[in-house]
Every structure is written in C-alpha cells, then in structure tokens.
C-alpha cells in the first residue's frame, strides 16, 4: 500500500504511470537493508552490506530459509545521511507479509532518529556494536538491541588493555589519553565512560572532534603532537580512520599508542596508510579478519553459483565478517521467535523482538552455525540487550590484523550504573515505564 501511494505520488509529480509493486508471497520474511554503498562512508559500508546480503542468500540457498520461510530483503541506499536513512526505514518498514522483521541501520545517527519510531512501529532495532550505550537496558529501550557490545564496552576494554600495559589502572594517574572522534553522536558515545574512568583513575583526557567526513585533521594532529598524549583513542568511521592514521604518520605519533574502536579497525582503515599503519591497534567486536567455517558454506552455496555480493577474497575482511555475524544474529532471533510463535511462519517485528530478547546462542550452536572462533556465546535478556561484552585487541602488522591480547570483559561495575542513570533519564524524559515486555 505504502509503495503504491508513494508510486502514485511520485508518478503524479513526474508524470509517469505507476507500476504496482509485485505481490509478495505469503511465506516470506522481509528484512530491510539500510546500506551505504556510496559517498564518504562507502569503503566501510560496502563490505558490511555485502556480508549481510550474502548471509541471507546463504540461509535461503542452504536451508531454504528459516524453517522454510525464505528471507527477502531490499537494500535502500542512504549514504550515511540520517534523514535519508529514516526515509529508507519508513519506506521499507511495512513491506513483506509481516512488515520488517528488524532494522539494522549501521549508523548511530539513524539509531537515534529511529529509537522512538521503531518503538511505535514495533520493529526491533539491531545495533550490533553501536547505537546508544544505555540502550542495552531493555527495560527502557524495549526495541533496541546493541548486541555484542556498546561503545562503553569498547572504550572500557581499551582502557583495561592500556591499564594492563601500564601495569594497572593506578598507573594511569597523570597519563594523558586523547580521543579523536567523529563529531557525531557516534563519536561522542565513549566520552561519558572516559570521563568516568578518568575521574576514577586520575588520568587526563583530551577530546578532539573531527568534523564530518573527517579529511581535515591536520590541526587535530598538530595538537596531538604538541600535547603528546600517552594514548590516542580513535573513534572514526569511513575515510576519517585512514586519514587519522596518515596524519599520525605525518606528525610522527606512534601508531602503537593508538587504539581504535571496532569501527576503526578494519582493512579500509589501515590499507590506505600502507606501511604507516603498522602497529596500530583496535579493539575487536569479538571477531577478527579471516575466513571461517561458515565461509565453506558460503563458497559452496553462494559464491560458486556466482551469487556473491563481494569478491571472494574480500569475504575474509573484518567488516564483511561482521556483516555475516549481524545477519546471523538476526536470523537466529527469527528462528528463536519461530520456536515460540510457530515454526515455518514469517514473524512480525513484535515476535522477532521476543526472539531477540530470548536469544541464547551457545558455543555449540555457534559451532553448528560455522562461526566457531569468530564469536563467543551470547545470551540476551530483557535487562541486558547487549548479550555479551567481551573483546580483544588486534594489531595491524602491515598486512593483516593480528589478535594481540586476551579476551577482556568490560567492567559492569563501572558501566552498569551509568547505563542505569542514562536509561532512567531517558525513561523519564519520554515518560516510559521501565519494565519488560512480553
């Protein structure tokens, strides 16, 4: 209906007769895909989108969908622009027999914009490794699922790693830690945790915003050169990441003292800097680069049939793998929902939400799915929409990302109260009564 009316409106405006959207089969699960394959953030948007798309293809080709419910998807390009992202969401949210199963915006800006809308529309918002950190509180943010880790988790893990390197949190006293961040809600997320930790441990912070799209960093790095922070945390996205590393090279800041968030630790971020990036670190969203067991299926069912979205070599890249994981989690949530609401039926957003909230992927299941070594078990609850908060540090050796630390888990003693505060503030602002939905 939506499409028809829009079509009519557009056609009326441009003078073309509208074509009705093809009727959709009833036994399909529609999942919209908000992507950015163009513009300043395309280098990062493309592999992630490919990973997601390929996983759905895999599920359809290998398993004939989720218990027989085939996945249909439609990509909508929004160029990392919040308003166009919202438009994509609005356009696609009602497609398919049951509407959108869930939304993956891959943009903290869009996440902010959609947080309320999805609640009204009853569509879960999966923000794996991004979004608002306090949204892990499922009693307030019923529809948000920042699976696998929030930015507070990410920054906490990095700080833990630094502390370990320095010999304990008490050694951080008097140290200076800079945050070079993308000047958007995304980049600002870790500030709260850094400030909190700085207060606790007495280190100094320096917050250096970089304006979109992030190619102007000269002054930032001149400041870094002059202020000489002990560590630089990088919260960039898109072309900003590689620029940061290049500027670091240009001012001679040691890359080994730089720690990127998991969105600043992929191949497109380091490759343009070539050798300059060697030694640069980033926290992982559990996984790192490489091809895993699931790739065998991918090759057999998708790539050998020439249906892959990417080039085969690229399927081992970090963001591609992350796309696979994200899609897998979504699919598993639908599967979980089907267990309760009826196998072999497409799920509504509300049902998928239940599936997400009761998602429990054990080590065995991970192995089954072919994600062994990529992922640790995750268990989502109403109180904890994050599900897992572990990560490692990886380091770029000039050619590959190499894991360079053990697993860390973010310190909930620090984070949980912050989440509680922020979530209850949000709840009171929006007049939401905290509690679990069924």
């Amino acid at each position, binding site marked *: 209906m939506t499409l028809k009316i829009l079509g009519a409106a557009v056609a009326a405006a441009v003078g073309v007769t509208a074509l009705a959207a093809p009727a959709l089969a009833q036994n399909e699960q529609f999942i919209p895909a908000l992507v950015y394959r*163009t*513009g300043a953030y395309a280098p990062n948007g493309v592999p992630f989108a490919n990973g997601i798309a390929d996983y759905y293809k895999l599920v359809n080709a290998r398993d004939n969908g989720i218990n027989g419910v085939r996945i249909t998807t439609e990509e909508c390009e929004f160029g990392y622009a919040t308003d166009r992202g919202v438009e994509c969401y609005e356009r696609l949210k009602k497609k398919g027999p049951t509407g959108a199963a869930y939304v993956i915006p891959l943009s903290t800006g869009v996440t902010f914009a959609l947080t309320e809308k999805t609640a009204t529309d009853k569509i879960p918002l999966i923000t794996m490794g991004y979004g608002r950190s306090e949204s892990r509180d499922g009693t307030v943010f019923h529809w948000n699922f920042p699976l696998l880790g929030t930015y507070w988790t990410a920054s906490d893990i990095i700080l833990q790693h630094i502390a370990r390197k320095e010999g304990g949190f008490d050694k951080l006293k008097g140290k200076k830690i800079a945050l070079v961040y993308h000047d958007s809600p995304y980049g*600002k997320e870790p500030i709260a945790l850094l400030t909190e930790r700085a207060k606790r441990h007495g280190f100094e912070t320096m917050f250096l915003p970089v304006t979109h799209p992030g190619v102007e960093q000269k002054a930032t790095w*001149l400041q870094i050169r002059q202020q000489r922070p002990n560590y630089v945390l990088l919260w960039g996205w898109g072309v900003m990441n590689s620029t940061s590393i290049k500027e670091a090279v240009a001012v001679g800041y040691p890359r080994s003292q730089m720690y990127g968030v998991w969105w600043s630790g992929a191949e497109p971020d380091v490759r*343009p800097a070539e050798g300059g990036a060697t030694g640069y670190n980033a926290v992982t969203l559990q996984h790192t680069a490489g091809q895993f067991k699931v790739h065998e299926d991918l090759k057999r069912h998708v790539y050998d049939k020439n249906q892959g979205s990417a080039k085969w070599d690229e399927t081992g890249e970090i963001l591609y793998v992350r796309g696979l994981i994200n899609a897998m989690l979504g699919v598993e949530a639908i599967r979980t929902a089907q267990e309760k609401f009826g196998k072999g039926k497409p799920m509504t957003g509300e049902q998928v939400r239940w599936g997400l909230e009761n998602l429990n992927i054990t080590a065995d299941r991970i192995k089954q799915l072919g994600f062994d070594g990529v992922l640790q078990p995750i268990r989502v609850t109403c109180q904890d929409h994050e599900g897992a908060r572990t990560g490692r540090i990886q380091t770029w050796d000039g050619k590959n990302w190499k894991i360079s630390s053990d697993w860390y888990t973010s310190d909930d003693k620090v984070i949980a109260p912050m989440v509680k505060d922020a979530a209850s503030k949000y709840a009171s602002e929006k007049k939401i009564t905290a509690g679990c939905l069924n």
Partner: protein
Amino acid sequence: MLGPIIETLIGGLLTGVLYALVALGFVLIFKASGVFNFAQGAMVLFAALSVARLSEVMPLVFAVAIAVVIMVVLAYVIERLVLRPLVNQEGIILFMATLGVAYFIDGFGQTVWGSDIYKINLGIPKDPMFFFEGVFPGGILIDREEVAAAAVCAILVAGLAIFFQVTRTGRALRAVADDHQAAQSVGIPLNYIWLIVWAVAGIVAIAAGMVWGSKLGVQFSISLVALKALPVLILGGFTSIPGAIVGGLIIGAGEKLAEVLLGPILIKTFDLAGGGIENWFAYMLALVFLLFRPQGLFGERIIERI
C-alpha cells in the same frame, strides 16, 4: 611555546598551498568565463580517481597523461553540453549548473572508478622531517608531502604565468577576462577560450587531486575540499591567481593557528565540547577581510556607475 607555533604556522602554510591549488582552478574558470564553478571539487575527485585507478595498472606517468586526456574531454563535454546552452545566463544559474555538473561527476566518477579508498603513490616518504631539534624541544616538524605539494603548486603557478604571459591563447584568455566583447572582436572564439580554461582547470584539478589523494587517499570526501577553497577565494579575490596563492597561505596558516592556539582557550572559556574552530575560522577570517576589502585582497576594485 614558540616551537609549536612555528610548526603550526609552517604546517598551516603548507596546507594553505593545497587549498590554493584547488582555489586556482576556481579562479581560472571564474576569470575567463565568469562561472563560479562549484564542480571544481568534483573535478579534483574525478581527476584523482582517474590517476589512482589508472596507476594501478600502469606507471604513474602514463596514468597522469591519460588523466590529462580525460580531463580535457570532460572540459569539452561540459563546455558543449552545459556552458554553451547556458551562455548569457545569469551567474547564479551557471553556478547552479555547475552544482549539477558536480553531482553528475561525483556519480559518474564513482560508477566508473568505484567508491573505495584508493591510493596514489607519488613516491614521497610519508615520515616527517624534523628541523631545529636543537633549538626547540621536539624540533620543527615538516611534512614532506606538503613540501612536495608546495613544489607542485609553485611549478603550476609558474607554468600558468608563462602560459598567460607568453602564449597567444594565454593572452587571449586574459583578454576575455578583461572584456568579453573586446575579446570577441579580436577574433577569439569564446567557446574555444572556455574549453581551454576548463581544460586547464581540469589539469590543475589533476595536480590538486594527486597531492590531496596522496595525502589522504582518494575517496569521495576529496570533493569536499572544494569548500575549503572558498574562503581562499573570497580572501584572494575571485579573479586573482596571486590572490588564490596568498589567500590560500593566509587561510591555511590562519585556521591551523586558530585551531591550535585559540581552540584550547575557547574550549576552556566556554566549556565547549571540543574545538574544531578551523571549520569556520577560515570563513570568519575571510569575512572580516571582506568587510574592509569587498573585492578581496587582489580582486579588481568594483567601481559603481550609474
């Protein structure tokens, strides 16, 4: 404290050279055709993408040569399809048209060349040079790439100067800039002139694109450096090549100094969430200049007649 200031100043000046390179393209076109060419940024991107992708399969020299051909063809197409039908239109209309051209080139460039981050390797070492390490703690850091950029810029300006002063076409261009009618009466076809300036601007874009691209990687965002060139333009005047150079230097140095020196003070005073004043400082600087010299530093004086 002096060390960092000098360092920032030098860094700023060198960045300014890069701005000047982009501004130069604007000036060339505005001077000869009165078009405020907003597509200059897109041209820089397109040129850089061409060089970057071509150099993946051939030596850089050939890549640049082919890119030159591409830019000339592009200039021809723009002149033919956009400028000629819009001849005698108001400036704002031409300005809009170049915005349209910018969109087109952005889309076209990414379609043909891709939207990933690509590399241009000019073979310049990336690591910085340090001077006066004895005088200042940490020495004075200078980016080799930027020095190279400055050199390229100097060569370009020299080349352009020779082109304008010595060649017949160059002199014709100057004539056009001064008075369209007069130029036509001398027998120079305006279309030809426009083609030439757009082609030259395209070649300047290659230079700018290569330098920027080598520094930042070649990606869509490069087209946004056009915005950085704008304050340079108003500061230096839309029609002055020396203005573009000097303006670029002032803007580059000004904004970096402001960011590094003024930024922290502002942050403290107003409890700001970070600095980033360089985003507007250049414009404000230019604006203040403008209030005293409405035609820019080197622009021709506007005499009002009735």
